[in-house]
């Protein structure tokens, strides 16, 4: 088991080098636009724009597909559920099989909702997969004035995550050696899972305490305002990315309004 949140892209790719706060803002603008629009065309255009941006992120396509597969699966489920259980079936009836009825109107509405989920998920994944957590913490602290105790604390905790995977295996092995195993009994499995989780938590809290002491010993709790080894600020390229995101959103709304389908979610 491995749990890491390291970026999975080429660090020199144009979007990977964009300031994390700019990326966060761009992804937020696109997600909000997709969620506000209730038609099927706006999110489709946004999704197309996101896909067009993929070559500039430096993410390998296979890796991206791996990260997105569950999200897209969820989006597909959203489409089906909304099409089948729509309040009213309008337009031409596509399927009429006993209690199962799907009309063009309901399918279109379902697709719109699924597409919105897709856009928000893809924007988030593209943003996080191209951002080093350290850079994100630096940017949040320096540009958005987030407290260092929060951002650096989260970073330090992130560093300890992979240890939890290894420790889980240790505890499970140690318990099997004692004759304790879930086997095929679901009740015993759940109880064993809970007690293993508890042991893991106790260990994690102990480690967190030691880490906090080590951080304070290096002056983390001193009252002096910290300096920053790496500067994070908005450069012209970052403004361009942010402006680009706004432009894409405006254009998507404009096109779907011109096409006559734009509606606002209410």
């Amino acid at each position, binding site marked *: 088991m*491995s749990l*890491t949140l*390291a970026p999975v892209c080429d660090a020199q790719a144009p979007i990977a080098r964009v300031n994390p706060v700019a990326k966060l803002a761009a992804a937020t603008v696109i997600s909000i636009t997709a969620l506000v629009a209730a038609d099927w065309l706006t999110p489709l255009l946004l999704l197309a724009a996101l896909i067009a941006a993929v070559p500039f992120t430096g993410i390998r396509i296979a890796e991206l597909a791996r990260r997105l597969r569950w999200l897209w699966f969820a989006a597909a489920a959203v489409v089906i559920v909304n099409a089948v259980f729509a309040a009213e079936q309008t337009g031409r009836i596509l399927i009429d099989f006993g209690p199962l009825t799907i009309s063009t109107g309901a399918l279109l509405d379902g697709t719109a909702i699924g597409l919105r989920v897709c856009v928000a998920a893809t924007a988030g994944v593209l943003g996080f997969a191209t951002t*080093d*957590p*350290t850079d994100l913490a630096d940017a949040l602290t320096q540009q958005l004035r987030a407290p260092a105790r929060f951002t*650096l604390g989260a*970073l*330090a905790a*992130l*560093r*300890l995550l*992979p*240890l939890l995977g290894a420790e889980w295996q*240790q*505890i499970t*092995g*140690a*318990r*099997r*050696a*004692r*004759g*304790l*195993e879930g*086997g095929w009994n679901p009740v015993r499995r759940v109880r064993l899972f809970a*007690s293993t989780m508890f*042991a893991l938590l106790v260990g994690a809290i102990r*480690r967190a305490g*030691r*880490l906090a*002491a*080590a*951080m*304070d*010993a*290096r*002056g*983390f709790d*001193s009252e*002096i*305002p*910290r*300096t*920053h*080894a*790496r*500067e994070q600020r908005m450069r012209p390229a970052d403004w361009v990315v942010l402006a680009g995101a706004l432009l894409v959103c405006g254009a998507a709304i404009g096109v779907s309004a011109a096409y006559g389908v734009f509606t606002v979610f209410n």
Partner: protein
Amino acid sequence: MIPVEFRGFAWRHAGRRAQAVADVDLRVEPGERVLLLGPSGSGKSTLLAALAGLLTEDSGEQDGDVLIAGLPAAEQRDRVGILFQDPETQLVMARSGDDVAFGLENQAVPRDQIWPRVHEALAAVGFPYGPDRATHALSGGEQQRLALAGVLARRPDLILLDEPTANLDPEGAQDVREALRSALAESQATLIVVEHRVAEILDLVDRVIALGPGGTLLADGPAAAVLAEHGDHLAAQGVWVPGVPLPTRPARAAGDPALRGDALAYVHPGADRPALDDVFFELRQGELLAVTGSNGSGKSTLALLAGGLAKPTRGAATVPGEPRPLHKLPARRLATRVGSVFQDPEHQFVTASVRDELAFGPRQAGWPKDRIEARVAELLERLRLAPLADANPHTLSGGEARRLSVAGALAAAPGVLLLDEPTFGQDRRTWGELVDLTADIRDEGTALLAVTHDRDFAAALAGRELVLERGRVAQERRR
């Protein structure tokens, strides 16, 4: 170069009745290099934490003063650097250079001065990589050297080392000592180090202070004089005094085969090379087989496979009279065949009292009640756990917890016992107890396999040694 002084110092941890240390009066002169010795419970770590300003008001109750250059230690935090045992919980950042910079950012060092000081500190500890190296990709010894660089970069006037090599394998420990040696040669700082393994650190210090229980002063003076005068007493207290001979317990002739490993191989999911590849071994009754090798050589993986705790990618581990390979046995049956003792005893405790802990394996195996009771009584007596029978396992001391985890693994009478680093981080007294305990178990006919870095432990007990290198058997030697 600053002086350090304890004046009538006492500390009681919040929630404890007894004081961890009481009436400590000590003075360390500017630039002195001091080794602080004492058994577990003598309060060495408490004294270091006090100097590092880490004993906050809400964590306990203090009497007397801890002064650094005449001021309370809590106000002198910026002039003190401390290196702890566990490298994994000292590193904060994902990139090595950032981690060294972390302490400088906290000191509000301007950005243009941070990076030169980071590079200087990394060079001072002989860090073999660039500043962008991921900290999770470092070995324990490398991580500890990085943590040392993080301490040195802040240019402390007082350096505190709390058993800096206790959690490392021998190669890693050696590298850290080298780094300390060269870094301290260039520093004027006052040094206080706590370390059980005296021989390795003796050339770094010029004064030894030996503490007894509760922080009472046992001896104080030049290193050679203190060790010559009080060596035997300190050794009996658990200090690894150089030159005091260690016991050995040679084995008698080995009996019938008790455990076999055939062509054992294990590949971690997603790994490009096997952690263990094509390993054969045979373990006999009444012998101890030591498995040695550097970190990453596959020792611990071998212990997992030999104990039936992981499914080998290829090959199988078997015991005579059991047609199925060990990894296919149900856990409750496995516990009657092979016992495994892990490095961290607490992982193995599954009940709330010492007595239940010993009864657990036999109960799982379905023994009748009177047989379980007899077995528990016997183990309590033999492993000197009888006075602790009703204690919670998680409240035991390091040595007691280790004895209990061995007793728990033996409870269901397996013919084979596997030990993973049984002596790791133990003081000399506990070490001696473990050697005797292991030898007794072996001489009763149990087959033992011990994964260990500890050359002395292997020399005291092992009949044979299996040396692993990159997942393969590099050598098998008779001792």
